[in-house]
């Protein structure tokens, strides 16, 4: 049975424990110029930030309220990123996580284009850049433990368990309390995700894409990619060449960007 996480956004106090837990468990660097908490303009997912907590000020009941939204890969039921990856570097596991195997990755970055939530990031700052995203702590999940971020939240934002159970819980919570938006984000988006969200302010105001259909995006990418096995080998060679070229180009592009910052 697939695991999932239910996120109750009304309970988040913005402490950022989850973002630090992610760094600690996954051994990732803290970068000055890439804060993991703050308004959406400054706290962004990146190759170093697999999860961020974004601050929003939202008009509600004739006043302003603050809300915090933790973002990370949603671990789709039927992930577009994995479908787009002919090298099988991204794989959906039985337990729920969509995980990434660096040694299989050719660096084509199709997954970045395919993901409807704009999650996978590229390690622009590495000599041999790879794609980078939340793994839902699959090594923990396999042992029956919750992901690192989930296990540290002091405010009870997360519930971890069977996705189907969580969905039921979520529905009963929002049915019993009319202050919640009567929708579970992730139930149907892109065919459903392992991470489910409930909130008392509209999801689009918290930076969640609400224009995503309910059909798994992999359905499209499967069609598009159905000839890839045939060309995979030659593509592999070409891409490896392109890889270094693009890397260089992107480094230069990034330097340009840095000047502007």
């Amino acid at each position: 049975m697939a695991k999932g996480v239910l996120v109750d956004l009304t309970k988040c106090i913005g402490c950022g424990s989850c973002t630090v837990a992610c760094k600690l468990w996954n051994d990732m660097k803290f970068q000055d110029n890439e804060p993991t908490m703050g308004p959406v303009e400054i706290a962004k997912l990146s190759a170093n930030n697999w999860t961020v907590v974004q601050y929003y000020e939202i008009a509600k009941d004739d006043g302003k309220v603050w809300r915090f939204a933790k973002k990370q890969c949603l671990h789709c039921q039927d992930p577009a990123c994995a479908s787009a990856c002919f090298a099988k570097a991204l794989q959906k596991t039985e337990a729920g996580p969509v995980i990434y195997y660096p040694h299989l990755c050719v660096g084509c970055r199709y997954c970045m284009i395919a993901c409807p939530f704009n999650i996978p990031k590229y390690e622009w700052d590495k000599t041999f850049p790879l794609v980078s995203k939340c793994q839902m702590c699959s090594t923990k999940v396999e042992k029956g433990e919750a992901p690192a971020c989930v296990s540290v939240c002091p405010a009870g934002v997360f519930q971890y368990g069977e996705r189907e159970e969580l969905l039921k819980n979520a529905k009963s919570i929002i049915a019993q309390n009319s202050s919640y938006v009567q929708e579970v984000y992730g139930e149907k988006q892109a065919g459903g995700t392992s991470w489910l969200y409930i909130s008392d302010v509209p999801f689009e105001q918290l930076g969640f894409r609400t224009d995503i259909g309910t059909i798994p995006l992999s359905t499209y990418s499967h069609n598009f990619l159905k000839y890839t096995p045939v060309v995979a080998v030659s593509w592999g060679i070409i891409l490896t060449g392109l890889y270094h070229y693009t890397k260089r180009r992107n480094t230069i592009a990034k330097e340009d960007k840095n000047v502007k910052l």
Partner: protein
Amino acid sequence: MENRSAKPQSLSRRGFLKVLGGAGLAGVAATITGCSTDQAGGKGWMPQQYQVASSWPVQVRGRVPIDPANPSITRDDKKCILCGQCIEACERVQTVMGYYELPIKDDIVCVNCGQCTLWCPTGAITEVDHTERVFKALADPNLHVVVQTAPATRVALGEEFGMPAGSVVEGKQVAALKALGFDAVFDTNFTADLTIMEEGSELVARVTGELKKPLPQFTSCSPGWVKFCEYYYPDLLEHMSSAKSPQQMMGAIVKSYYAKQKGIDPQKIFSVSIMPCTAKKYECQRPEMNSAGKMIGKPEIMDVDAVITTRELANMIKQKGIDFTQLSDEQYDSMLGEGTGAAVIFGTTGGVMEAAVRSAYFLITKQNPPDALLSLTPVRGLNGVKEASLEIPGVGPVKVAVCSGLSNARKILDQVRADLKAGNPPSYHFIEFMSCPGGCIGGGGQPRTSLPPSDSVRQARLDSLYTMDAKMYKKRLSHENQEVLDIYKNFFEHPMSHLAEELLHTVYTDRGKHLTAKNKA
């Protein structure tokens, strides 16, 4: 949110510890050679700390939220290990975090007490640094930089230089400040005595019914406590004494009275205070703390420009290479430098009460209190809640309570609320509140001499303050402070005069609308 992180190329902290601990060498080798076939991420918590036999990291408990705009405290994410000690301080000792309903409204609730900085084992949470500001002011020849020192720093600063807990370093501290280049070194004890005159007069006016404000009267010296009351007990704000804290009184006087006496343009004065407290950093920037500026039509001038904690002062002294332990004692500067024993015990729980009682006795009876009142043992010591009843001729029994640590404040405040609700006469006339356990000696800006803070260190500092009161200061009564008498003669005329109201008193803000308080106490 700022991450003061290492240079991008540096080895991550966990990676470093891993190599150091020799753990996961195979993994490191694999990473270096790039031949690992593992998926990305997920190699575990830090070794030693988290790789325990159990698969559940019990030591990982999360942390308190800190607003990036918090004027008092800040956190370096790189150092945080999610041990949850800050929650221990904030939720259990101070009853701040967790005492409001979720969702939050529009505030990350914090009373700025800084207790979390004392508990954080890695030093991830620290005070917001004001030392740069002060060094800059000191280097500016156009500025007249004055400094005041709180009662409690003089029995703690020495600990930063290897001296035993509670060492009295009053004279050395003055010498160090002069060596750092301050133009005048004043004693917050002076305004502590002044506070007693104002707050004591207010108490007498409430007791006699001359002032139409309810009893009990609450002391208002501890800005963390004040904000706590504003958040959780705004219905009781009428009980709060309108007297400003000694720090803010000094700030207001320096840029008015002192400036006038010395013929210095208040705009050229930079006013610094050395405090045991992180909440003072928040207090000095409360919008209403600009009385001196308002008086001269420049409301943008704040009464206090920078607040330096005891720890920060130690850093400044170390940075300048001053050998603190070898300094010989120096004296505070006159005009705002005299203090009494009553003032110095402001630094500990029960001290404000004892000082106030000494002078209230005088204000009511026009006679100095009997010797027994000079050692009010029931309100001394580290107990969280203390009570006493004293006979004041002409008034009868005056009932007082003293509490320190905000979880203890709740007990007393709930009692006051219950009395009011039942229509009973108040259980107390006067209540002293201090935000930090033990009072300012245990303040959030004090040296981290023991982790978590321990009562033995607090007791040593507390003992020293009472020794100073009993043995080292010539005067023990606030109303005998000659410089205080002078300022009334030359400037304010009498306590609670119009000018005193303008410069020495303040108003409070109802913060109840920023949270939905839970009643857990």
